[in-house]
């Protein structure tokens, strides 16, 4: 069609057309009689009136309300427990830690938080840490990483991308992993103990694998020096991020969870969408069908309080949650579906009334009136 334009605009130029005498074309210029060219393509012409639209509203209502109820029930079946351990409050066990703490302090501060689970958690339980007011989605923050470095590229390891600035080099050594995201990695650690009714304190095993995306762990993130078992050597010549206590190759003892492929690190590197977010910390795997994963009773959470949030009025939480097919506990969608379904149903009724009162008028009879 652009061609058509050019042809005609070319003719517009008013060039002297050079054609010898008798060179005229005898072909008729009559347009072709095709449905397309005559704009007569068969077409569906929906007309939006109360009468025609009516069924759609009822159908939507009828479908949405059951879905909403289903979603709501599903969401309600999810058990979730949350502890805020920021320690802003004086009564909080972590108050001391929160007050005395900064990024540079070397002495770890531990606080112990007891809590009571009123319901047993039957299936696997997911342990999250939650942060509020933490703008992990800040534009400059999000950019501040080097994906090639994280992918094990030696060159980037030693010469981080400028996106990492000003967290690319420290003391003339490249930082590994570079960038603000890595630098600000969450470094509180949790330990969960079950206070047996008989007084013993049982540590609950927390699995630290399987918390990151499979593709992240196996494709996106790779340690430098292909399959070099000696990570220390692989990271030779680099320095740890400023805020970190240990270098990256000491994140974990297990070799398949160390260095860049440490899952805690990977989880952190996936920047949250909203300033209030949670990140998966550990999974408490279901051991047997007979015993609930977390029976009801008293528990103790031991937090190694490292991460300062006071500077931005942040909150820190620990969340225990089971999940369903639709993820964590969130009644919103269920409620939304129910609401929308009801609204549609209601509008359907309104339309029905309109249709009955005025519908006849809009029909053909109306035109002749």
């Amino acid at each position, binding site marked *: 069609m652009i061609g058509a334009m*050019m042809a005609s605009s070319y003719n517009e130029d008013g060039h002297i057309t050079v054609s010898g005498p008798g060179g005229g074309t005898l072909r008729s210029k009559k347009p072709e009689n095709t449905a397309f060219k005559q704009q007569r393509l068969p077409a569906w012409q929906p007309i939006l009136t109360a009468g025609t639209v009516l069924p759609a509203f009822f159908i939507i209502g009828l479908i949405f309300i059951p879905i909403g109820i289903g979603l709501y029930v599903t969401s309600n079946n999810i058990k979730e427990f949350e502890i805020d351990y920021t320690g802003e409050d004086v009564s909080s066990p972590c108050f001391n830690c929160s007050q005395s703490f900064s990024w540079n302090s070397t002495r770890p501060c531990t606080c112990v938080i007891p809590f009571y689970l009123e319901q047993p958690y039957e299936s696997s339980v997911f342990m999250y840490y939650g942060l509020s007011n933490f703008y992990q989605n800040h534009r400059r923050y999000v950019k501040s990483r080097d994906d090639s470095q994280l992918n094990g590229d030696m060159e980037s390891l030693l010469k981080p991308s400028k996106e990492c600035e000003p967290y690319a080099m420290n003391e003339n050594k490249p930082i590994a992993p570079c960038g603000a995201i890595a630098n600000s990695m969450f470094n509180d650690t949790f330990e969960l103990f079950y206070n047996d009714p008989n007084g013993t304190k049982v540590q609950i095993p927390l699995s630290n694998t399987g918390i990151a995306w499979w593709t992240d762990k196996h494709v996106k993130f790779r340690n430098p020096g292909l399959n070099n078992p000696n990570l220390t050597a692989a990271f030779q010549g680099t320095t740890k991020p400023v805020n970190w206590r240990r270098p990256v190759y000491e994140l974990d003892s297990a070799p398949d969870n160390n260095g860049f492929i440490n899952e805690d690190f990977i989880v952190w590197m996936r920047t949250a969408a909203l300033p209030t977010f949670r990140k998966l910390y550990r999974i408490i795997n279901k051991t047997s069908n007979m015993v609930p994963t977390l029976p009801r009773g008293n528990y103790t959470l031991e937090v190694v309080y490292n991460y300062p949030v006071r500077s931005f009025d942040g909150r820190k939480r620990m969340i225990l949650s089971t999940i369903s097919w639709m993820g964590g506990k969130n009644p919103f969608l269920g409620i939304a579906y129910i609401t929308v379904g009801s609204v549609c149903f209601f509008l359907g009724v309104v339309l029905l009334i309109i249709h009955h009162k005025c519908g006849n008028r809009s029909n053909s009879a109306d035109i002749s009136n």
Partner: protein
Amino acid sequence: MARESEDPAMTKASKVKRQRKKKPKENKTRTVHANILYDNAKGEENPNRHYANNEIKTTKYTLLSFLPKNLFEQFHRFANVYFVFIALLNFVPVVNAFQPELALAPVVFILSVTAIKDLWEDYRRHRSDQEINHMDCLVYSRAERRYVEKYWKELRVGDFIRLRCNEILPADVLLLSSSDPDRLCHIETATLDGETNLKQRQVVRSFYDLDCDFNPLKYNSIIECEKPNNDLNRFRGYIIHRSGRRDALYKENLLLRGCTIRNTEEAVGIVIYAGHETKAMLNNNGPRYKRSKLERQMNVDVFWCVIILLVMCLFAAVGHGLWMFQYGDKRPVFDVLSPEGTDLSPIMSAIYLFLTMIIVFQVLIPISLFVSIEIVKICQVYFIHQDMELYDEETDSHLQCRALNITEDLGQMQYIFSDKTGTLTENKMVFRRCTVAGVEYSHDANARRLAMYQEMDSEEEECTSHGGTLPRRDSVTSHQSARVVLRSQSTKSHRRTGSRAEAKRASILSKHTAFSSPMEKDITPDPQLLDKVNDCSSQMDFMRFHSQPTSQLPSDLADIIDFFIALTICNTVVVSSPNQPRQKVRMRFEMKSPVKTIETFIRRFTPSRLTSGSNNSSSSSLITNRSSNKGCSSLLSSPSAESTLTKLDEEQTPRGLEHAFSPVPPCYDGKGWNLEEGELRYEAESPDEAALVYAARAYKCSLVGRLPDQVTVELPHLGKLSFELLHTLGFDSTRKRMSVVVRHPLTDQITVYTKGADSEEIQSSFFCPWKRQKKIVNRTQNYLNLYAADGLRTLCIAKKILSKEQYACWLQRHLEAETAIQGREELLFESALRLETNLHLLGATGIEDRLQDGVPETIASLRKAGLQIWVLTGDKQETAVNIAYACKLLDPEEEILTLNADSQEACALLLEESLHYIQAKFLCSSTEQIYSSSSPSSHSSSHTAAPFTVHRLGLVIDGRTLAYALDKSLEDKFLAVARSCRSVLCCRSTPLQKSMVVKLVRNKLKVMTLAIGDGANDVSMIQVADVGVGISGQEGMQAVMASDFALPRFRYLQKLLLVHGHWCYSRLANMILYFFYKNAMFVALIFWYQFYCGFSGSAMIDQWYLIFFNLMFSAFPQLITGTLDKDVSAETLQQLPQLYVNGQNSEEYKPYMFWMNMIDAFYQSLVCFFIPYFAYADSDVDLFTWGTPITTLALFTILVHLGIETKTWTWMNWLSIAFSIALFFTVALCYNASCPTCYTPSNPYWTMQRLLQDPLFYLLCVITPLVALLPRYFYRACQGTLFPSPVQVGRQLDKLPAETRRNILSLSRVKVGSPLSPKPPFLSLTKPSPEVCNKKDQRSFPGSKTSQGPVLQTVQQSGRSPLGPTDTERGLSDLYTLLPTEIDTLPYTKDAPPLSGGPHPPSSQDSECLDKTLEAADLSLSSWITSTPLLTQTDSVQLKLPPDGDSQCVTYTRSSEEGLKSDHSVHPAQRTEQAADQSLHTIL
């Protein structure tokens, strides 16, 4: 020209001085020397070297300059600069939002698409330039002493070139020699102006006498002429011979580049202008660029978008500053320092952020909008081109869109200005009747013959429509006679100029012969007149034989023969014979050229010549022709005649030779079109000329040859007579007549034959020496009125015999005028006026110009569509009015205001009173409207013109009055009057007035105007209007060249406007609105997000999606919808023209709609943002895993939104939507799987893949678009039921089965007042109101203000003229006494003696007469009027008062309003008197 002024700098310093002295002279003229004189001194010395050579280069670019130049041109578009600026902003690290390279992609894409398009166009231009530059022509070479072939591009100014028959002229050439014995050269100018008739060009006079071939070597003259200019019809200059003699050069001497040499074996000329300086190239000014109303409106909204963008950016910047500020010195970990590690203050980062936000939000200004609109328009143009119903089979032409970017304007027209001749009518003139010497010859047989044409045509149509296989001819002939009676009643509206087949043949023919349809040719002569002609000529023959002076002939017979001679020779018709183009053979006069100098004149009229001249010249002017009667040869007596014969013999051989080369006219359909051998064909510049010449031929008075100095006529009994043509004073639009000065071969008298528009001529030019003549004039005037009433074009034919002295006297001054350098045109005009006085009226002709097919229907439906139709014509008032009735422009039921004024003051008064009249009359319906309309300036701001047109009033105004009315002081009043009338008819208007009217309406009323016309006189109007439409009809191509759209016929305007205009408008309007919505909705998503990312300019939508969303993912469906969507079917649109109002009122795209769409966009984006927000609140979702669903949701919402707005779903719509979705997911999946480490910062590896496994994603996809679109959907449904727009009702009609629809439509046609028309429609509103009004008037009138109440009071106060009486009572009655001179304007006053001096008190007789009319003014009267509108009208036409009468306000009112009028006129006489007095005072 710039080149020439630069020249001195280039030449040597010594020359500079000399050159500078010459410079002032050079600036005005161009001097051309022959090149061959300077062959040896190549280069430097050649005086012509500074002139452009003949190589043309229309390309814009060279290979090297393409990139910079093209980019430069593209950056003229502000949007491009903006987008590039934003893309470049991305390279600044502090503010960048996207990967800089990526951000460049869309801009580069858009720019390169345009660049490639430009490159391709340029290449095509280059190719065609090459082709043209390498054509051959013969150029004289001094070295070889002969003409050698050269390429066109090698041609230089000053070269001699030889041109052969059928060659195209390579440059503008001054004709120096022609092989033609008359030193003529025929050219066809079709490529320049589209006129296909042959034009004659003359050899420069000084080379006229050369007997032998022109020898370039002997040429040593210098030509001085104008600088190159683009006026095709002007060329001035002179040639200076070595002897110092100067000869003037005219446009007749110049052959223009691009024309084709015809009928001339060989011609030699010197190149005057070459290459780009030729007139053809200077005229070639590319396609026109207009900006449509919709686009203007769109630009306003683009501007609003910019404001919104800035506000959003500012908001974000302030937000960011505050967000930063709240942390104070405690720098949170997520607030990353600048790359240098320095800390940014909140204010600085706010400023940086502002720039970043502009980049992020750039999508709000839709980069693809401009490109998309262009694409959609091209598609629309394509579809309009392809429409079968706009294709005219007869001429094998279809609609041409010459302006590509104003298609949507077609849907918004409010005023149509139409030419009459050739636009409403066929412009195929047919001679109908004539009157000679006061005797009318009605030509009944001719009328019958014309009726037959009509029959045959409708017959044929029926045949083709019913049984295509039927043998056509048979059915026509067998049923014809039976059908005639039947048909003549049933198909009255069916007018056509002949059967289709015939018309087709004619159209093929017309490529060779201008204006000679079969209808013009066959004319059945009136037997009575034919007898008289025969009688007369035989008498003359007799008398000549007996050497009796012809003056003894009875004067009426002499008039008859003179009449026909005038018809035959008073024109510019060229004769050619179809079989042999060079039929013209003649013996030459001894005196070859017409008298051009006084000396020659005196020499020619020496006594000896005068005595012997009579016989000699007549006999020597004989001509032999193959078709001629052999009997004529008996008259060959003089020796010169013998020489003719020998010359003829000599020429026989070359002619035979040439015959082989000359284009043999194609043999058309052997049966029907057997041209008689030797039949003459007339090539006329205008169709009426041809019609008259053919008419004269029917009376055996045929034109057989025309040369510049001689016209040959063949008369019965007398044979061929040659009239020496002394002067031709061509037709011009101010004089409105043309004259020829000839020497009559029989009497040897110098005779002036004039033909011209009647009123002018009769008014000013007729000398009435004795009573008889006066009587004839009166009678002729009566017949003229009758003809005009019949809608015939009238022409008066007159003659004048000049004595030698008179002629000599006139000639002297004429020659002075001709040779004048300054103001030549004006002098010539005056000279012509001097000649055309004291004419003797011979007779008058009535030529019919038939209405085109379907014109009344088209006008009716266009008017129903709410279009105001004004007809601007050059025709005389009566003719125009009658054509207006015939084409239903004026309705017999409506009242007509006629404005004819003789002076500015009279015109002012007339307008004032019309205004009062309208106010008074339509008081009940629209008081306040009229009230306010007296100050139109205040109204022009609100562009509502429609409410003013409710009155059933027609306005007729003539050219002279129009000239006054268009004066600055009166134009507002004129407009106020004109726009309260339903139809306006401007007669006798000049082209300039036409354009002034259009300009006035366009500028003052702020309405969309369309001008349609077919001739050169409409060009200015076409150019002024918002949309110019040219009819590619009879009168050449000038109108088409100037137009935006070219139509083959007027009736196609209906579909073009009602269907294509409506579609184009609604499609484009919806698309533009959708574009704004789409971008706003998408951008708002990011805006909401800023609240959750600390206003940091972060986007959850991957930058790829962000950038390509508009360009790729959501682009196709809207293009398809924008191109193909039909809100209402073509049939319904045509049957319900009311739907057009939709576009006129811009209902699809009103300013508030933009804001509604914006609000909807913000709502939808809120939904699309917050449903995912809450669904993922406090979860472990990451930025882009959360952003990708939002993108998807936005895409779905946008597509479904389009779905709601789409009215017709073809498979292409489905396909495009499916394609969009598929494209998005494919791209997303590929993109997310392609590279695990690339695409920082989002690095969306495997995101989409994971999302597709997430049930939540699907749940979101279902609910979000639904919630987002629920309000719109619900609103549309309610609107469709509760308050459907007319268009929606039309759409509902479409859905009904065909039969029901037809019933409903026929119903609604009767009752226009259906809910379809958004405004109270015409009939229902106005129909009752005049009646009510009338009653009220009548009741209240005698008792003055008793029952009128406050309404009237206000009107009277507002509408009182400054001249009006002061006290209330007077004011009131003044209101009703419409026009002071009204009583004078009653019928038959023209027979009364001219009113002497003062006002004429209305006599009781008059009032009685009025009373009678009042009594009759009931239904029966009006029905009678309806049936015979013409009669009533001629009756009430008030002829002009004698010129000394000062205030000639002429009005007449008609039909139902007569009662009202007379009511007022009975009112006290002194009132009128007083008013008239006042008007007189004002004039004095």
